[in-house]
């Protein structure tokens, strides 16, 4: 059974600037005094992207993570994927994780479509035999036919998207992590893409989708988590959480130009929102 459990997870990004270069580490040791005093006043600069998050995602859950830009959606996906390890708290995951944040890891413009299918397929965790088996399906969905034998450099942007999408969605995931940027080209392709993503989601045991689009999450998920400034504001059935999200949008719009007040407001909103559910 697939499962994701987070307990009091904190994720922080260190900000590296010139002040942390090798020179300072060396001179900090040799010169001590002045430089060290400067270093001591400003502690290590970190940005807290997830703040004390605890949640459990069970087998069969199709979870949407919703929130504004910078709310911590992508970070949360990357914590699930094990890319960013929490600086505090624990995470435990049962099942194989398939992250699809970018459709084509290892895609190279100088390689042909076929070569890219093999490289990307291998990196996405498929075996050669599996790639071989899925090739007709990938060929058909990408609709690139003869172009697949040409270097990807000759493709239009839309064609590249189709190729990446066709490869990425060919996997058989257990825990599927999707970022909203899994975009689609023209309108006709968008519809085909939606159908293919739906099939991909149905093959998985757990799906987590991060997006700021309430509509998309409403279509794809049976549970939603609302994030704000790295905290879980609400967690529950999609409909209820989206309602809250829309309300929050209306409330906060005037404050958007003033970051300071926005932060204050959301701080007040957060407990109220949690009790509202």
């Amino acid at each position, binding site marked *: 059974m697939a499962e994701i459990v987070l307990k009091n997870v904190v994720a922080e990004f260190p900000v*590296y600037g010139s002040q942390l*270069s090798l020179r300072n580490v060396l001179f900090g040791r040799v010169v001590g005094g002045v430089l060290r005093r400067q270093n001591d006043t400003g502690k290590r600069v970190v940005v807290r992207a997830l703040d004390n998050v605890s949640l459990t995602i069970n087998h069969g859950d199709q979870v949407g993570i919703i929130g504004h830009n910078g709310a911590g959606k992508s970070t949360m996906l990357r914590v699930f994927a094990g890319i960013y390890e929490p600086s505090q708290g624990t*995470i435990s995951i049962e099942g194989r994780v398939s992250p699809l*944040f970018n459709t084509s890891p290892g895609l190279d413009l*100088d390689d042909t479509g076929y070569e890219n299918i093999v490289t990307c397929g291998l*990196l*996405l965790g498929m*075996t050669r035999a599996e790639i071989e088996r899925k090739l007709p399906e990938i060929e058909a969905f990408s609709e690139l036919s003869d172009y697949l034998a040409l270097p990807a450099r000759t493709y239009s942007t839309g064609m590249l998207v189709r190729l990446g999408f066709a490869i990425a969605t060919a996997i058989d995931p257990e825990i599927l992590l999707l970022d909203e940027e899994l975009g689609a080209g023209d309108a006709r392709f968008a519809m085909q893409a939606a159908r293919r993503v739906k099939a991909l989601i149905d093959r998985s045991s757990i799906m987590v989708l991060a997006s700021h689009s309430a509509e998309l999450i409403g279509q794809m998920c049976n549970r939603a988590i609302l994030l704000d400034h790295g905290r879980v504001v609400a967690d529950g059935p999609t409909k209820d959480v989206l309602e809250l999200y829309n309300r929050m949008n209306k409330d906060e719009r005037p404050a958007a130009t003033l970051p300071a007040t926005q932060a204050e407001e959301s701080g007040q909103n957060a407990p109220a929102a949690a009790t509202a559910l």
Partner: protein
Amino acid sequence: MQSLALNIPQRGPTRSPHYIALIDILAGLLAFNIWGRLGWRATKRRYRRTVFGPFWTTVSVALFVLTLGLLWSNLWNRDPKVYLPYLTSGMLCWTLISSICTEACFGYFNNEMLLKQLRISYTLLACATVWRNVIVFFHNIIIYVLIFIYAGIPITWAMLLVIPGFALLCLNASWIAILLGAVCARYRDILPLVGTILQISLFLTPIFWSPDQLSGRMTVLAEYNPLYHLISVVRDPLLGRAPELLHWLIVIGITLAGWVLTLEVMSKFRHRIVYWI
């Protein structure tokens, strides 16, 4: 093991950092179908649309060795049939080591997209760098073969020792590549430093000259130079003689110490690398 290299287990109460680092290293080394492909594609790509392809490196090394070899054997009054094979085999080894070290510095930056999507083995990426350069080395071997025929070196059984010697060289190159990738990601000053050290090492290591030409205190340049021992276990068999036992012992010692160091560093800092790139 293949999927483990692309999906390193997450840290948990039962999994120590050492265990994770060990999986990273072992699964990475064993995922030869993936690093093999990455390295092979990169080699082909680099020389697409050129006539000689990777042989351009060979041509440049050949010209360097020929002109320098003929000039210096004349200046130093040495038999070109002795000096040229010595210089060539030494240069081939040094070129391999130096190009791996230079490219390893970019090893993790260049794969940022991959590292931010997959919990992939860093060792796998380092192996791809090593493999790419080993392929170039095998192209360059043709220079050695030509010089070998010109100098009329007798074929001996000791030449077979080039196999374990070369394997040891690659094993060392791999841990160096893993560490350099991480250190260069954290401290951007290391990159130019590596270039400078490599350049000086070419002159301070017995490649153009042989250790018996040294006298007095300068003999430390050979005795305490790890690069000299590393090169010797490949160069001596290429010249038809068995490397001294001391070379083997020192190289095996460096290999063990290097991998233990890598394991320690990776268990301590593996989870931080993604924040550095």
